[in-house]
């Protein structure tokens, strides 16, 4: 006797919980061969709003954690990801229609990128910060500080690597993120959210929305409580309008990057979502 198939219904990841979409909508996720894979939640603008509230609440704690601690937490994600390697390989294999070896290589790349970014957490400030020479008896020190809440449209043609490459660098400096996953390949993103939920990442630091980026991204771009917008996966959208909407509230914006090398690991991606704070301090009182 064959077992009954147990198709999974994937939900959103907001504030450390897995709610259904407020709208009650779902959409079918199809495999590369057209077969049914799972149902995923189709997030609405109100889910995006709730995610921003959750992210805003998490910024102070995450940004306030020591860089060393953030590095450990991010490294722990890589450990858990490695531990659930088989699940991710199977998901990517089905969703993208790759061979097991190709899917495995993708998961390896995603884990390696987490580790790479985790390592930068307590080194980035040294690389990006500076002690500036000034004409007076003062220390003049510039340090990078997190921008705040970053909304990300993840690369649309990749399950896991694109998602990881967009999210990890924003987390390194202490930002909280609201990320719209790939519409076609959302399952690895939510599986990664399950990894995040059982890791040490404080709730609300990463919020994952699945559904239509074309529908959700404009609300995030115009949201006054979002500080930065990463449009890396928004190449198919009307991203110029998104950039214009973001300008109203002076958000930092990263433009779309096409192709398989989108969001390749780089210090610039960490620096993109930091603000430079410069402080003066007297050198000594003699």
């Amino acid at each position, binding site marked *: 006797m064959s077992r009954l198939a147990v198709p999974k219904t994937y939900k959103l990841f907001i504030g450390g919980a897995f709610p259904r979409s407020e709208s009650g909508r779902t959409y079918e996720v199809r495999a590369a061969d057209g077969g049914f894979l799972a149902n995923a939640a189709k997030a609405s603008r109100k889910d995006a*709003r709730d995610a921003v509230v959750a992210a805003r609440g998490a910024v102070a704690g995450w940004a306030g954690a020591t860089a060393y601690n953030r590095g450990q937490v991010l490294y722990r994600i890589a450990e858990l990801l490695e531990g659930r390697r088989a699940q991710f390989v199977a998901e990517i294999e089905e969703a993208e229609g790759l061979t097991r070896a190709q899917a495995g290589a993708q998961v390896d790349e995603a884990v390696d990128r987490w580790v790479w970014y985790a390592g930068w957490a307590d080194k980035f400030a040294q690389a990006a910060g500076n002690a500036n020479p000034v004409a007076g008896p003062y220390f003049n020190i510039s340090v990078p500080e997190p921008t705040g809440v970053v909304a990300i449209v993840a690369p649309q043609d990749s399950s896991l690597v694109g998602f990881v490459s967009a999210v990890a660098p924003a987390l390194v400096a202490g930002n909280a993120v609201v990320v719209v996953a790939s519409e076609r390949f959302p399952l690895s993103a939510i599986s990664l959210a399950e990894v995040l939920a059982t890791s040490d990442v404080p709730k609300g630091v990463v919020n994952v929305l699945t559904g239509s980026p074309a529908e959700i991204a404009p609300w995030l771009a115009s*949201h*006054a*409580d979002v500080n930065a917008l990463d449009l890396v996966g928004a190449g198919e959208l009307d991203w110029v309008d998104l950039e214009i909407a973001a300008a109203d509230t002076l958000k930092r914006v990263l433009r779309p990057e096409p192709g398989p090398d989108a969001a390749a690991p780089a210090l610039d991606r960490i620096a993109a979502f930091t603000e430079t704070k410069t402080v003066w301090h007297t050198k000594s009182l003699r």
Partner: protein
Amino acid sequence: MSGTSLVTARERALAVLGGEPDDATLRRYLHGIAGVDAVGLEQRAAGLGTRSIKTSSKKWALDRIISLIDLTTLEGADTPGKVRSLVAKAMNPDPADATTPRVAAVCVYGDMVPYAVDALGPVHGDPDDGLISVAAVATAFPSGRSSLEIKLADTAEAVANGADEIDMVIDRGAFLAGRYGLVFDQIAAVKEACRRPDGTSASLKVILETGELVTYDNVRRASWLSILAGGDFIKTSTGKVQPAATLPVTLLMLEVVRDWHLMTGQRIGVKPAGGIRASKDAIKYLVTVAETVGEEWLQPHLFRFGASSLLNDVLLQRQKMATGHYSGPDYVTID
């Protein structure tokens, strides 16, 4: 604003009770009131909370909520400066939008009343005229644990300093012990202390502290008792005890107010206070008021929200409706 005349209030109470308001008579009367169907009450409240209020109705509701707010600061750390900034916010809640209405009143501790009156200046007055009242908590707020003399002195001082409204707390210990006559006499005495030399009287809000009354039956009895003793408003909570205002409790108090109005023709106000932080929740209260006692009650002399953080959420919602995109806490004041 003038409260109800004392003589008629007492006469009315005597007529309703059929005797002097002592422990025995009040006990017979209050315990003769039918018990509350708790499941039915909560279901009714939940049902009223499901109404969908959108677009122009929502816009109306948001503005109305602001004009019904008692903007409150009741902290041990209050200073004259904090009260002045509260008053500035009460007068001009959203500096970026001149169409924003003013709140109904500011609610402060008795010793802060002079600073509030001073900061309001010509804006101090009746909310019906678009002005802002000053409400003061009195009678050893929030516990109410002190002698009657001190409670009366506390009240008289706030009134003398210019408070238009007095928020008193009942003696929950005495109420729960069944000493209804004592609670009645204290409310009546505080009501007397609300009188000004010119014969007018500050409006009296009676705080039941429903979180300490334990049962819905007790809330209903305390509501009747407070109204009989001459309260102009019945208020759910001090905000210092959890649970504070809930929709079922407010619905229950509104039902008492409705019954009293049918019985005597007198209109009593209701003020839920504490724990109402979101516009969405506040709109549920408006629906409940309109459906229970009628839209007529949605005016500052008959319904208030005791709130502080609610105002910011309403302002964010207003900004969202005006601009079409979500706003954020950076666009309202930090209180």
